[in-house]
């Protein structure tokens, strides 16, 4: 890929001259106007806050989060020791080429535009989206919402803009579903967050087409910490989709997002992720939704790529008859560990949750399902269904399942099924005998394994998912 060479944009004076920016070893010739340098300290936060011209409360919030992050140990007592390989001192926490996203593709700097064009974003926007955010490293490079949707009162922008322009709604919900101290990485995100989407849908508005955000990591040794907050008011509906990519670097990159969803009474949120990180990205993301009475939150989560993904989208079923769903697909290739799952916390009567998780382990890839379902004794009429299926492609692939299901009281019901299957040589030979190459045969078998789940995805995403699996399988056959 040709590196971006020159970036134009709003020129803002560098707010913190004192930070040594030469430490950042630029692999790509990108001229960032804003660079918080390498390593994390209060000065990093001073820099980010100054660059964004933030209000005092948010800076306080960040500084507090930094203390929480520093005080919390790595969760290696239950999670992989690979987390210890993250060197927080070598990461760059904020890189931006401008503070204001462009409203039309023509204005986006040529090389960034080319990146997103290669990813097919403008085309998708024209075809089926109600709005697009395209984030390049720390800030959105492009942001647009279709007039029709904006006129309905829907707000769709990035968190930087939301803090500036909609502080009253933002502040009310921000950090409420996932508090700073939820875990070490939510604390890290709370300290240095930048970008991510902010969506507000007014009561009764059903957004007909999906809103989409695209997250692109371009710089090496970089940490992307987007913060997404989606509030869907009573009886309203929205589908949000995010895609994530990064080029392949020789050193580790960190992606640590926090996503908070709030579905008020009778609201519906569908949140779809298709990520295809390069295999050196530590992807440590906290995602949780709060579903009020009769609200519905559905996470569709496809994890491909990364070195280590730890992500367990959850729903807190707070109101009566609230529904939560997680449909997840994870593909762990050589040298990758997909530690994914779902959390369903039932906190009201007649709440229902459904988890279907499918994982595929290729070569030495490792996939782990980690789930939590909690239904306390005092509730009645709650239901959970959990299904985890694992597919192993090679004999040295690995899968583990940790389903923690706590269902108390006899007025609630749960159902749990798990299976492990293997693609055997006979199946591959059978398909090869029909003319398919080994890689095509593997792809087809994998696509078959996830087929019943992928069918529930919007068409565009099923196609994208299939393409990504084809690419993964292509590379996995020697």
């Amino acid at each position: 890929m040709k590196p971006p060479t020159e970036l134009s944009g709003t020129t803002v004076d560098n707010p913190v001259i004192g930070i040594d920016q030469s430490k950042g070893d630029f692999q790509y010739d990108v001229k960032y106007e804003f660079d918080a340098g390498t390593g994390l300290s209060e000065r990093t936060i001073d820099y980010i806050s100054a660059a964004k011209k933030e209000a005092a409360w948010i800076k306080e919030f960040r500084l507090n989060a930094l203390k929480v992050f520093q005080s919390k140990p790595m969760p290696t007592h239950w999670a992989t020791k690979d987390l210890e390989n993250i060197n927080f001192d070598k990461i760059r926490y904020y890189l931006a080429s401008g503070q204001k996203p462009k409203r039309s593709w023509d204005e986006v700097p040529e090389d960034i535009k080319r990146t997103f064009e290669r990813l097919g974003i403008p085309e998708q926007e024209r075809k089926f989206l109600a709005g697009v955010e395209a984030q390049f490293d720390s800030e959105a490079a492009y942001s647009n919402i279709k007039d029709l949707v904006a006129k309905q009162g829907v707000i769709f922008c990035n968190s930087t803009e939301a803090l500036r322009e909609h502080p009253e709604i933002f502040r009310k919900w921000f950090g409420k579903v996932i508090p700073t101290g939820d875990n070490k990485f939510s604390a890290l995100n709370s300290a240095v967050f930048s970008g991510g989407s902010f969506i507000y849908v007014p009561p009764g508005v059903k957004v007909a087409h999906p809103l989409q955000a695209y997250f692109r990591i371009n710089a090496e040794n970089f940490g992307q910490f987007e913060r997404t907050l989606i509030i869907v008011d009573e009886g309203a509906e929205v589908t949000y989709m995010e895609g994530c990519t990064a080029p392949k670097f020789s050193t580790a990159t960190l992606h640590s997002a926090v996503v908070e969803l709030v579905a008020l009474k009778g609201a519906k949120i569908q949140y779809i992720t298709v990520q295809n990180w390069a295999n050196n990205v530590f992807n440590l993301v906290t995602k949780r939704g709060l579903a009020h009475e009769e609200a519905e939150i559905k996470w569709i989560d496809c994890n491909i790529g990364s070195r280590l993904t730890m992500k367990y989208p959850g729903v807190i079923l707070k109101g009566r008859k609230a529904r939560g769903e997680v449909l997840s697909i994870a593909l762990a290739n050589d040298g990758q560990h997909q530690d994914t799952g779902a959390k369903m916390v039932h906190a009201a009567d007649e709440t229902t949750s459904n988890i279907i998780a499918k994982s595929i382990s290729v070569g030495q890839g490792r996939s782990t399902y980690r789930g939590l379902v909690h239904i306390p004794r005092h509730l009645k009429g709650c239901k959970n269904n959990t299904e985890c299926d694992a597919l192993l492609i090679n004999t040295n692939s690995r899968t583990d399942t940790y389903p923690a299901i706590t269902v108390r009281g006899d007025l609630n019901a749960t159902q749990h099924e798990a299976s492990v299957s293997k693609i055997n040589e006979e199946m591959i030979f059978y398909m090869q005998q029909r003319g398919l190459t080994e890689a095509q045969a593997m792809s087809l078998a994998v696509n078959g394994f996830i087929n019943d789940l992928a069918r529930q995805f919007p068409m565009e995403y099923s196609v994208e998912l299939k393409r990504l699996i084809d690419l993964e399988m292509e590379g996995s056959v020697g």
Partner: protein
Amino acid sequence: MSLLEIKDLHISIGDKPIVKGVTLTIKQGEVHAIMGPNGTGKSTLAKAIAGHPDYIITDGEVLLDSRSVLAMQADERARAGMFLAFQYPSEIPGVSIANFLRAAVQSRMTEGEELDAAGYYKRLYAKMDMLKIDRKFTARSVNEGFSGGEKKRCEILQMAILEPKFALMDETDSGLDIDALRIVADGVNTMRGPGLGVLLITHYQRLLDYIVPDYVHVMWDGRLVKSGDKSLALELEAKGYDWVKKELAAATV
């Protein structure tokens, strides 16, 4: 006209020799039957010709139109025109017959060539009608939960769509009741003609009542020990494999 030539073929599984020198030439348009008791190497021969990686060719040659196929992967051999109807076809969960066959058809097209979807389905449905297969069948996952008869019919359907030059049919009659056997045989007979050479592998004479072979070979301990026309099959049926065994014993004394 294409030629499939098997020359002094030796095949081992692991260290164990199974096929110990088979020579056979099949021309397009001919139907050859190989008969023999279980464990004499019939299926091994078919799978090895098709390129199964577990079967090691230790000596000999397989030529398709004078070109050796031994260095070719199974999929290259398939695209070159060789089809194996499996004795035990694999299940492919989640992959419909229609999609599987479409992928197989596409694998035979040159890069950039687009599949004519309407034409493909038209052809698929015509072949299904010929084999008396319900249209709903194509939406089912390949072989998943199929009865023995459905599996074999699915094999014949694939063969009909892919139109190979040579079909190796491995115990296609096993597990079939008489009605299913008839349908499968009718399918093969319809495809029979100057464009198709068939190697039928069977344990029983029964199949040969329906698919009448041009040549019959008897396999014993990894070798073809007797060849003849269709009357050999009838003779075998009448006298049993012990007859061959005795003849062999007499010959080696």
